[in-house]
């Protein structure tokens, strides 16, 4: 992972994005599942786009399909930046 982007910055972006998609801020945690947060495949596609815009990281649909929790998403993005 590049020193330019920290895991905390990634988590902040993910959490802010989830709130934009309508997830309850009180329910968002590292362990929370996207299913529990009512985050669906279109939301994850938009999250991929936001990540691309912010960090220039390309996430494929097959990558995102494996992501189940907030922590999964943060770890996946962190492994690519």
């Amino acid at each position, binding site marked *: 992972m590049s020193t330019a982007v920290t895991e905390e910055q990634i988590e902040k972006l993910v959490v802010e994005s989830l709130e934009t998609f309508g997830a309850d801020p009180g329910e968002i945690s590292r362990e929370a599942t996207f299913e529990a947060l009512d985050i669906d495949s*279109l939301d994850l*596609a*938009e999250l991929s*786009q*936001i990540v691309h815009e912010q960090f220039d990281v390309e996430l494929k649909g097959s990558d995102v399909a494996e992501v189940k929790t907030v922590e999964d998403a943060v770890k996946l993005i962190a492994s690519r930046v």
Partner: protein
Amino acid sequence: MSSAAERGGCALVTGGSRGIGSAIASALAAEGWPVGVNFRSGDQAAGETVARIEQEGGRALAVRADVTVPEELDRMFETLEQAFGRVLVLVNNAGVRCDDLAISLTDADWGQVIDTNLNAAFRATRRALRGMIRERFGRVINLASVVGPRANAGQANYAAAKAGLIGMTKTVAVEVARRGVTVNAIAPGLIETDMTADLDGELLGAVPARRAGRPDEVAACARFLASEQAGYVTGSTLYVDGGLAA
């Protein structure tokens, strides 16, 4: 908000230099949208469309791109995004005909029509949706045809492409509806354009209205579908055919 165009961004009309595409470009410009007038060949016609829009107080940019070439399609979007901002209205109008009876239709003629009329529309839609879902607003308008829902001997390729467009319209509409993005199709019947100039005049006899339609009559429907007021219309196909498909 009285006009959707007040939010910024722009419209893109593929195959916008002539006929129905040119009329739609003018109608969207009149609604306040800066318009990308895409053309593959015939830069003079594209220039005339842009000049007409500018004379009427609108903004437009002619953009050359073969929509069947993904790199050219991407460059066209980038050009428009730099000039006007995100493409928030996409009109997939570019189309070709290569007619023959199915028994004689070549793979090349089949492929060219599917690639231009269907595959390119999908790629343009996928590209435009990125900006639309981020903006929580978008209008995709696919120019289908009465051919597809109806048979027309000699146009198996064209019918397959246009029926495919209608199927794509419905599914993409469902996928993005909750982001404020609508996806609809317009199915023109016999419209007076260069593309239909060689068609048999006897076809008019099958049109209940007993006349061909005009490009501006199709454009008026596109203008409505692009509007703020059409925000609850999605996944639909609007027939502009003088009753032909009724």
